[in-house]
């Protein structure tokens, strides 16, 4: 077993665009679930809108990359409005069912061969990197050290991703510690009490749904930046993985989603490297493919144990549980 290679791959996960994308998505979900108490089970749909909005704007309409990114975020905001109007007045589990159904409808729309010329159906979209790479100020070459050695394009993706994440985190931190954020937490704890204070609960929830949705879509854009858009990625499992990351770090915290996503990907990459290696060297009596499946089983078990034994997550405060209902 090549431990050095395993550790190096695991280390590379720390700066991977996927990790940054999960962190952004989990941050948006924290606004939804952690602070507003909204059960959004359609994370994959919001991410798909960001990614497809970005890729389609560039490929079909020939827009520059930043305009594509903005369109992706705008699409998610509109999606949030459409979902919010019928469901935010209903009980929480209705939002869960509607968002998961809507995300699945989006995935099927991106997957169908009917719109193949725009969405690329099952193959997804690729080859939209031109404009993004032209905007790269870093001279050609390879930079960095150890597991974090990347060429100029890979660094540019990471830098843009990290800047987005930093701005988003700062924004969420400020807004959660503002009067707006306190009303939002109040709605989570006791909706009727906040309504009795004369606040428009529906409007606050809607603002939270749109804001969180835009952040999740930003995660989708960052996910799409380095490689390609594929409908096979935006399945309901993706939603559940982002939830796992969020609950691991702590749903009702600003830095919890970041820490949770980072730990999630470190553990996930480590298992993805170490389990097949163990199977190959005969320590585990399973095949390589089974070793690849095993880590998904472990994620499911981890999610159950987490919610049962530490629902507030690593950074969360037991007194500020988000599972109030």
């Amino acid at each position, binding site marked *: 077993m090549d431990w050095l290679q395993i550790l*190096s*791959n695991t280390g*590379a996960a720390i700066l*991977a665009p996927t990790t940054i994308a999960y962190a952004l998505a989990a941050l948006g979900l924290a606004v939804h679930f952690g602070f507003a108490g909204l*059960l959004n089970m359609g994370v994959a749909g919001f991410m798909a809108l960001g990614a497809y909005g970005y890729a389609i704007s560039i490929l079909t309409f020939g827009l520059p990359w930043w305009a594509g990114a903005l369109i992706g975020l705008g699409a998610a905001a509109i999606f949030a409005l459409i979902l919010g109007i*019928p469901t935010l007045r209903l*009980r*929480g589990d*209705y939002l869960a*069912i*509607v968002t998961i*159904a*809507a995300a*699945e*409808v989006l*995935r*099927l729309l991106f*997957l169908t*061969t009917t719109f*193949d*010329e*725009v969405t*690329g159906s*099952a*193959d997804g979209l*690729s*080859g939209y990197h031109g404009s993004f790479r032209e905007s790269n100020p870093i001279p050609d070459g*390879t930079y960095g050290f150890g*597991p974090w050695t*990347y060429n100029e394009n*890979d660094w540019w993706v990471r830098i843009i991703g990290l800047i987005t994440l930093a701005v988003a985190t700062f924004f969420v931190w400020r807004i959660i510690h503002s009067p707006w954020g306190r009303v939002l937490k109040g709605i989570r704890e006791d909706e009727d009490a906040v309504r009795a204070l004369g606040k428009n609960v529906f409007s606050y929830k809607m603002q939270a749904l749109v804001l969180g949705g835009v952040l999740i879509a930003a995660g989708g854009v960052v996910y799409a930046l*380095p*490689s*390609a*858009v*594929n*409908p*096979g*990625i935006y*399945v*309901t*499992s993706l939603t*559940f993985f982002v939830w*796992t990351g969020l609950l691991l770090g702590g749903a009702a915290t600003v830095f919890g989603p970041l820490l949770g996503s980072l730990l999630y990907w470190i553990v996930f*990459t480590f298992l*993805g490297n170490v389990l097949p290696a163990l199977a190959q060297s005969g320590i585990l009596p399973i095949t390589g*493919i089974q070793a*690849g*499946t095993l880590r*998904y*089983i472990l994620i*499911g*078990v*981890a999610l*159950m144990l*987490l*919610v*049962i034994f530490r629902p507030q997550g690593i950074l969360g405060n037991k007194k500020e549980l988000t*599972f*109030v209902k």
Partner: protein
Amino acid sequence: MRSPTPAIAPPRPKKAGRASVLIGAIVAAFLLALALPTAATAADGDPYRISGNVQLDGEPLEGVRLVIDGPGGEQEVETDEAGQWRVSVPEKNETYTVTLDEETLPEGIAVIDPEDDSPNEKEAEVGAGGRVTVNFFIGEGERNVTSFGAQLFQRIFQGISFGLMLGLAAVGLSLVFGTTGISNFAHGEMVTFGAVITSALVGTGATLLLPLWLAIPIAIVLSGVFGYVLDLILWRPLRKKGVGVVQLMIVSIGLSLALRYTYQFFIGGGTTQLPYATAEKFPIFGGLVSVSWIDLATIAICIIVIVAFALWLTYSRIGKATRAISDNPSLASASGIDVDHVVRIVWIVSAALAGLAGILYAYYRPGLKWDMGAQVLLLIFAAVTLGGLGTAYGALVGALIVGILVEVSSLWIPADLKYAGALVVLIVILLFRPQGILGRRERIG
């Protein structure tokens, strides 16, 4: 939901550093783990793409040969099991000729287009978008002209069959929701369980090799035992601990992931057929509908089981207690009903019904797969929500509506969007009647 049809790993960036190799590996592992069938791609390196779909009356045709000629040379491709084909081509803003080899179509079938002398040959212009779709109209001339009425009947029949099957799963989900408040996302995996166990019992490998008539009842009993065990080791302790319903819902999501990938761990990512899955079809109702005896048995079993279930729920002591708990758990408990005992029975019944639904669904699809339950989970949820959360009979009505809607809607919308149509209707109905068809206003709170 139907799992994503063919997908290929996205091409890697040109200069692949270690990170992009890693991303490639993650994406590849993702795809491998999700067990997506790989598509028949001709030249992976080429950036642009021509693709299409070969179907006959909505059924995909596999193994049809197509020849694509144009800049970059001649390429050959065959359709996959979903009837889809695709080739990569090196140039855009160019015209390619796509020829469908009619020899590879089934007997008596041809490409038809009255306005075209050589309908099996088409020009495809790869435009600025870099991708283009080419579809052929396939059929036997006369069947297409007279078919609409017959097709409608066929679809309604299939829809009723599918709806009854969904109903078996939906009433269980609805009972569990009514008595415990759990939105059980692992219900899809309980559906898969029945099919997986049946397949293990009848055995393709070196397993028990029981005859089907014996294997199915045993599988249903084992499904019930599975529900009992889950209640014993998971749900009952959580009830005692007083865990909230949102937490329980996320626990069920974790359970769903763990179970689903456990199935994949043991049976792999492929599709397995149960015995007699390819039974011959014969016409009934004066030729309006063609069915196999498996279809008829499915409907008969569903109706018998659902009637028995309804009688049990309406007249038996436990059934009455179940409805009492759904209505008001505290009052039921105060009236001397042993809530824990009833909830345990509800889990067993719900799991057994889900297991039976799974076996029938494995025939309907056809074939069993590790994520088949997750594919219909949302339709089951749609059925329960349409009927009214927590009402068992409502779930049944909702399931029939969803089943017929899914099948009939594919007359007008593309077959790969038929599940999407049902989910859109779910969202729209929630707008106007959020309590569902048989639900009561107070439940939506």
